């Protein structure tokens, strides 16, 4: 199975781990990631005004490219996942944006949201299946109590992203279980880490991440996983981090699949 792959800017740079372990794991799991040539940054956030199009065009181009290849589009970064899915939803359902974006892009045929956008985890859940995944695990993460930290962008708005139940998600927990680890459920897992305010209000994000660590360790987590480079950054800024390491979910995946070395 081949997928168009949209890595996004951060994965090329600060979050190379998220990317490289994903690629190695994909090979081990038997699917191929074809990076979209000349992709442009998704913008990191969905535009503030629902009536804007200029800031949506880079996503539209990537989506249309995947459509032309006849492939589903995979992303890993929670921000790209969020933006691509929402823009795709606009292209499918919002007449005005669809028309304006297509007028601007002048594709061979108009893009109308045909591409299916999938998060890497969704491919594992919906295409490969957790049962199949657990069969491929060579180094089960036995005895590890892992807290899934979802943050906000992967889950919300739940109706459009259609990723998992936004209030009570279980995809990452099932993932951890499939890898042989023990998922730790805690209520802060879908609460915001403070996000981009880290730039101007680092103290505030610190408060947030402390609460996240308190809650997750309170329930017994000995490490956290995330899919978001920004969450990773903010969590890493916390002092608690020394006791509780934070990993990209792909890193644990690669470890369990035994492909860390080649990555």
């Amino acid at each position, binding site marked *: 199975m081949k997928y168009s792959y949209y890595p996004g*800017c951060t994965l090329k740079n600060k979050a190379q781990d998220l990317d490289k372990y994903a690629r190695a794991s994909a090979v081990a799991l038997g699917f191929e990631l074809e990076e979209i040539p000349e992709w442009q940054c998704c*913008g*990191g956030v969905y535009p503030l*005004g*629902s009536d804007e199009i200029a800031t949506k065009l880079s996503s539209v181009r990537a989506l249309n490219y995947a459509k032309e290849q006849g492939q589903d589009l995979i992303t890993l970064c929670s921000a790209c996942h969020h933006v691509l899915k929402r823009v795709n939803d606009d292209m499918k359902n919002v007449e005005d944006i669809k028309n304006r974006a297509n007028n601007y892009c002048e594709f061979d045929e108009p893009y109308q949201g045909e591409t299916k956008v999938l998060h890497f985890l969704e491919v594992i859940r919906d295409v490969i299946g957790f049962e199949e995944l657990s069969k491929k695990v060579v180094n089960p993460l036995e005895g590890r109590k892992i807290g899934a930290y979802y943050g906000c962008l992967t889950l919300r708005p739940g109706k459009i992203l259609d990723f998992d139940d936004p209030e009570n998600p279980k995809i990452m927990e099932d993932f951890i279980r499939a890898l042989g680890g023990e998922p730790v459920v805690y209520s802060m897992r879908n609460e915001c880490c403070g996000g981009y305010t880290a*730039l101007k209000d680092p103290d*505030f994000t610190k408060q947030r991440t402390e609460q996240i660590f308190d809650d997750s360790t309170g329930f017994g987590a000995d490490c956290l996983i995330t899919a978001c480079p920004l969450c990773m*950054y903010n969590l890493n800024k916390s002092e608690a981090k020394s006791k509780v390491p934070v990993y990209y979910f792909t890193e644990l995946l690669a470890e369990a699949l035994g492909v860390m070395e080649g990555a």
Partner: protein
Amino acid sequence: MTELEKNIEIIKEISGSDPYKCMRCGKCTASCPAYSEMDIKPHQFASYIIRGDLEELIDSKAAWKCLSCFACIERCPRDVQPGKLVDATRQIVARQRGGDYLQPEEVPELLAEDLPQQLLVSAFRRYRR
């Protein structure tokens, strides 16, 4: 249509949400992780807009403190989506006033070495036009 109603129409258009649907239940405010930072609370955005107190919103600290975490949008029982009203306020500042919360000159100073690109672009999008 009154002047006030026209302004509300503009906000409706930018935000794609309708402040008149708000029933003042406060679930947004209850959900907001940035509550402590906000001088005007999320649930008040709808009432400020309906009252026509756009100036106060625009001048507020709150408009820039929203984390865009969508908790209020997800949970709002009336589908008012207060987070979108906050975003719309920022847009009005950017579109009508050219005011930005983040100036390019500030950036080098704020830049940490391990800062992910995602943070920078997000912040730029959120704080500026």
